[in-house]
């Protein structure tokens, strides 16, 4: 749950800041020309942040699942499909 809140906070910041930049971009003196390097790398790092946050959530979940539901876990219980002897689809 905390992870999701953190994710939303990061995402909102990443969404709001560019909007602010666009709104205030009109009076951009003395640099009259857009520096494509700055624009593109900024976008890249923002997307990398999102990708790594999502990646941390996905891989964190995967690692937790692997650990929690391993058969050698003392908390492991048989699934309800094991008694029947067959994988019920």
């Amino acid at each position, binding site marked *: 749950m905390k992870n999701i809140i953190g994710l939303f906070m990061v995402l909102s910041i990443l969404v709001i800041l560019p909007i602010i930049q666009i709104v205030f971009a009109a009076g951009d003196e003395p640099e009259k020309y857009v520096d494509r*390097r700055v*624009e593109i790398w900024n976008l890249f790092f923002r997307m990398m942040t999102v990708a790594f946050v999502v990646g941390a959530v996905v891989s964190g979940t995967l690692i937790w699942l692997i650990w929690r539901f391993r058969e050698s876990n003392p908390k492991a219980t048989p699934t309800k499909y094991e008694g029947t002897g067959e994988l*019920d689809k």
Partner: protein
Amino acid sequence: MSGHSNWSEWVYIGVVVAILVWVGAEAWNVERIIDHVPENAEVIKVTGQQWFWTFEHADGTIEKGELHVKKGIPYKFEVTSKDVIHSFNIPDYLVLMDAVPGRINTVWFVPVDAGQFPIQCREFCGLIHYNMRGTLYVEDGLDR
């Protein structure tokens, strides 16, 4: 079997779609910003051929393998090729545009920092593709 509720999957897909919409919107916006070529951009014709680059400035000066530009001035490259597809690339300035025979592709930039920067080819073009290199010289605009 799918009798149990799938609400978690719907929330997950909602989050995924929201992230993708954000990606698309941001990308669209940045592309819009960098796509707009300034009216006073100086035109440089770039011709790729196996295996070197030729540059023709607006005043007719021709340079081969190296390109001299002035800091702070916008330049618009009109890129084409004489033989196979090449791709004009100044990695430090993120200038990248295919040189296709029979057509002219446009990309623009402003050299913000003075110095020397590599130029390379970014589309496989044969034997010396790996060494189809050049140098961009960005000079402070005072002396030329």
